[in-house]
């Protein structure tokens, strides 16, 4: 085992914190530096669109680790990395200081995209950070009418949470149904029906054309000429990898940071690693390079990274069966494998009408994923088959 000495992790969310934890767990006793641009102890993001918005006061922030976890970590919070110098593995921070290390871990994650037609403002928010969630939580308590733009999983969860708090909700989605790009028309249709049943005014096939900021509300124009009045709007239109700070470093970071299946960044000369939402790596299971913004991917990849950082001869590779979940109202949606909206789908158990079912996704006759709607047992049953890319003929 090599002696890495000093490890600097840039990005203080799940991926970065789990790298520290795995290094310690595997016996690393060198120096650890954790750099994060939010002025918060690292916290768990999934509750921000769910319990954090719906829970009564006082609502707790779910920290990733207790404060004491960082006793032996040099914690640099509230500062952003602005530059990486590969030659001496030095990270320049926006307070003018710089951190040198034997290993640099790129874990800067992703940022919520903006919408040009509905830019950030006093009554408009995106949801990525705890600060964003605080604003939205406060708006839920002072507003009556909420507009959600974007029917992806974040937008759907915010809409569901707002209904739970009794707000009037309009959800605008440019495609024919929510989540349809990611998981297709069958699940999209079910999610659309769930939101309508819960009183959401779902407006599909429409986008935002413009906005008027009045003193006490927003008036948002949609592409069909209709207008939606709202006290507050949340924009949920996806995320982009946070790589601006790598410009000029020599690392190619368009669409994410390319690394191998051991998390080593290509062309960085060694000692530079990538993990989590920012990382792009070659997936055997998906048949090409992928970037995955899932909680479990970050957790699992961090463990692989730590094993490889500590041991050059480690044979640990990252190629998990991707997994992500969503909670909306009383429904749990679990997505296993690599699923696209245009895959073939086959109902393998349950009933769409009862909103309890499992839908297998396949390409060229082989299973590539599963959506389990209120059916957690099916996730267990299908994982091995998905990992093996089993023939659909053998699945259903």
């Amino acid at each position: 085992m090599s002696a890495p000495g000093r490890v600097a992790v840039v990005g203080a969310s799940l991926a970065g914190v789990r790298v520290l934890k795995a290094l310690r767990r595997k016996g690393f006793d060198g120096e650890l530096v954790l750099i994060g641009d939010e002025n918060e102890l690292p916290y768990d993001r999934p509750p921000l669109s769910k319990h954090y918005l719906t829970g009564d006061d006082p609502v707790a922030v779910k920290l990733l680790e207790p404060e004491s976890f960082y006793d032996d970590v040099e914690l640099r919070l509230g500062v952003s990395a602005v530059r990486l110098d590969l030659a001496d593995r030095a990270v320049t921070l926006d307070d003018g200081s710089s951190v040198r290390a034997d290993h640099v871990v790129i874990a800067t994650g992703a940022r919520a995209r903006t919408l040009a037609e509905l830019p950030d403002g006093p009554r408009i928010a995106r949801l990525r950070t705890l600060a964003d969630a605080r604003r939205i939580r406060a708006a839920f308590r002072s507003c009556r009418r909420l507009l959600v733009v974007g029917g992806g999983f974040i937008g759907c969860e915010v809409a569901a949470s707002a209904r739970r708090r009794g707000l009037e909700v309009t959800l605008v989605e440019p495609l024919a149904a929510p989540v349809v790009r990611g998981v297709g028309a069958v699940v999209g249709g079910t999610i659309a029906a769930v939101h309508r049943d819960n009183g959401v005014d779902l407006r599909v096939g429409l986008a935002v054309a413009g906005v008027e900021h009045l003193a006490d509300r927003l008036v948002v124009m949609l592409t069909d000429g209709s207008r939606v009045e709202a006290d507050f709007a949340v924009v949920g239109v996806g995320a982009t990898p946070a790589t601006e700070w790598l410009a000029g470093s020599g690392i190619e970071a368009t669409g994410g940071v390319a690394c191998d299946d051991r998390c080593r960044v290509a062309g960085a000369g060694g000692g530079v690693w990538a993990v989590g939402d920012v990382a792009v790596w070659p997936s055997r299971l998906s048949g090409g390079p992928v970037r995955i913004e899932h909680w479990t991917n970050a957790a699992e990849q961090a463990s692989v990274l730590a094993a490889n950082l500590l041991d050059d001869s480690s044979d640990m590779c990252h190629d998990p069966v991707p997994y992500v979940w969503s909670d909306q109202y009383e429904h749990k949606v679990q997505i296993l494998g690599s699923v696209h909206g245009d895959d073939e789908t086959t109902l393998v158990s349950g009933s769409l009408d009862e909103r309890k079912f499992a839908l297998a996704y396949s390409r060229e006759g082989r299973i590539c994923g599963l959506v389990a709607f209120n059916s957690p047992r099916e996730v267990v049953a299908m994982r091995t088959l998905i990992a093996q890319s089993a023939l659909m003929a053998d699945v259903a």
Partner: protein
Amino acid sequence: MKVAVDLGLCDRQAVCIGITPAVFDFNGDGELTVLQPEPPESLRDAVEDAAAACPMAAITVEQ
């Protein structure tokens, strides 16, 4: 090594069962159950991986 699941936190996501089916499963009521509360040392990595991958942080592993 002792393994426990906090059922108050468990969200039945089944990630642990997928990673370490020798130790975790659903029981007949669909509740998570620990099949081996004191698994052999040979399963330590697998159990710790399952604990680390639990989105609810519901699994504890003691020495």
